[in-house]
């Protein structure tokens, strides 16, 4: 059973005339690492909001179709119920930290659920360690760097022990070092903790190596949906103005000149290795 099933999803924000999501059918299996991308305004953020119930419970509008996460229909369950299965991390880390220390912030979610103190302590400690924030747990949010703040926000979401982690452009406000921190953390959570990850991101060169699947959205619909090798080499992706990683472009240029590699490289190291395979005798 897929952990997320979406059928005929259409949504128009109240007060808006154009639908933000215009017919989405999608199914995601447990443990997948899905990268969501597309030009600005394509509906990535709206889509993320549909996964944890912010749509339709927090954002009202015309909602059609069905979204079922971990067996729960988002229309029939409150956000706080869905939050225990789907964690949502937002772009700006600053606005996701409301308490005066990191530890207090991570405890916020479990406290809301009315869990006993020992359980809260267990979850908080686990989440802090999993995100590498244990040493920084007594710091105030404004004393942290952007990358550290976003890690704290992720810890806060992990304390809810969700099966699915949705991140809406989490590296937007971060510098390259911070972005690398977050992506490495998310990759680790996906690998070691078997979390299902949905990551909305523009900078595909950073995330493509980890993705099982890339979904490209356009004007509220899914335009492309497949493994990175397929999606990134399709003409439609270039047409849509998606940021194709340079190694993929290089691969395409080499292929056009007759040089075929055994697969599509997603990182510089991979490309070098594939080229070395082909040129067995230039050593």
């Amino acid at each position, binding site marked *: 059973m897929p952990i997320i099933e979406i059928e005929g999803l259409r949504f128009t924000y109240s007060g808006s005339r154009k639908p933000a999501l215009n017919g989405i059918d999608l199914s995601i299996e447990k443990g997948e690492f899905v990268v969501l991308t597309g030009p600005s305004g394509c509906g990535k953020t709206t889509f993320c909001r549909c996964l944890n119930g912010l749509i339709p419970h927090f954002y009202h509008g015309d909602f059609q179709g069905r979204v079922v996460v971990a067996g729960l229909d988002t229309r029939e369950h409150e956000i706080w119920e869905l*939050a225990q299965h789907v964690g949502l991390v937002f772009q700006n880390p600053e606005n996701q930290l*409301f308490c*005066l220390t990191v530890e207090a912030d991570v405890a916020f979610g479990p406290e*809301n*659920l*009315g869990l006993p103190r020992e359980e*809260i302590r267990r979850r908080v400690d686990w989440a802090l360690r999993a995100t590498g924030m244990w040493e920084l747990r007594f710091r105030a*949010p404004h004393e942290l760097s952007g990358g550290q703040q976003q890690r704290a926000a992720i810890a806060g979401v992990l304390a809810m022990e969700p099966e699915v982690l949705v991140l809406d452009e989490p590296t937007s406000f971060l510098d390259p070092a911070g972005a690398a921190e977050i992506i490495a953390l998310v990759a680790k959570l996906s690998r070691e903790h078997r979390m299902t990850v949905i990551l909305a991101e523009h900078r595909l060169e950073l995330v493509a190596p980890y993705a099982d699947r890339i979904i490209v959205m356009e004007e509220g619909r899914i335009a492309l949906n497949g493994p990175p090798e397929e999606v990134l080499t399709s003409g439609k992706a270039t047409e849509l103005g998606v940021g194709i990683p340079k190694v993929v472009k290089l691969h395409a240029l080499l292929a056009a000149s007759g040089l075929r590699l055994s697969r599509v490289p997603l990182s510089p190291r991979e490309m070098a290795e594939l080229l070395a395979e082909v040129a067995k005798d230039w050593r």
Partner: protein
Amino acid sequence: MSGVLEAFAFHRRDSVLHRLDPRVKMFYAFAMVFVAGFVFSDVSPFPAPPGQRSWLLPLIALLIVQGLLATLGRVGRLWARTLRASVPLVLLIVGLNLLTLWWPHRTLSTGDIERVLVLAVRFLVFVTSFSIFTLTTSPDDLSLALEQMGIPYWFCFMFRAALRFTPVMAREARITLDAQRARGLELDKGNFVTRAKRYIPVLVPLIVNAITRAWAMAEAMESRAWGAGRRTSLYVLRMRGRDYLALLVVMYGVLMSIYVRMLVCFPLILPYVASFFEGLL
């Protein structure tokens, strides 16, 4: 302005006072207000012996006690800063009161001056007793204390969030100011009215951002199960032996001060001070 705010800000130290339960410290502050305002004053339910002239002596004693406590709490210098930050307001109180007393007969008696000083010192005792409380209590513990005393969680949350975002908003204000100055905005020109209007380009983005932030926070809060039902807390404040002891000490102090009030006559001290100085001269 920031000096005044800093005068009440919490500083992490390791001291006897810091380790006390915030509720005890809050009780102390209120007890101080009670003693300074309703025991050593003319507005009191307790009788005073005839011959009672002035409260200046006991109030000064209270102020000294505060200073000693502040030193015990290793926040002596900060406490002194609170004192200094209150000076403008105190001068205002003193000035206005002296003026109202002097006006009718164009003369001031020593008793008048002493009475005004009593007002000033009482005000200082109020302010500094609360500052001892805020200087030695972290905002976390404070809001936890409020929570455990029964104040609804949403209020405590608001309090904490306000504290949390104050430095953030201060930083944004600076950035906005810089950005508008870089577009030619000059804030130091013009009269009061035109200058006030020039702050609009700084205030509007601040307010809009504050609202946007509140919305983003609400989304994040909902996504972490806000409103799920009954809340529990990771942290709990427990009164320990030393907290009960401190409570007893404070209550003993209050009772003692009532006792003193009912038995002792405090004279005017200014005449003594004046003659002391005259003697020097």
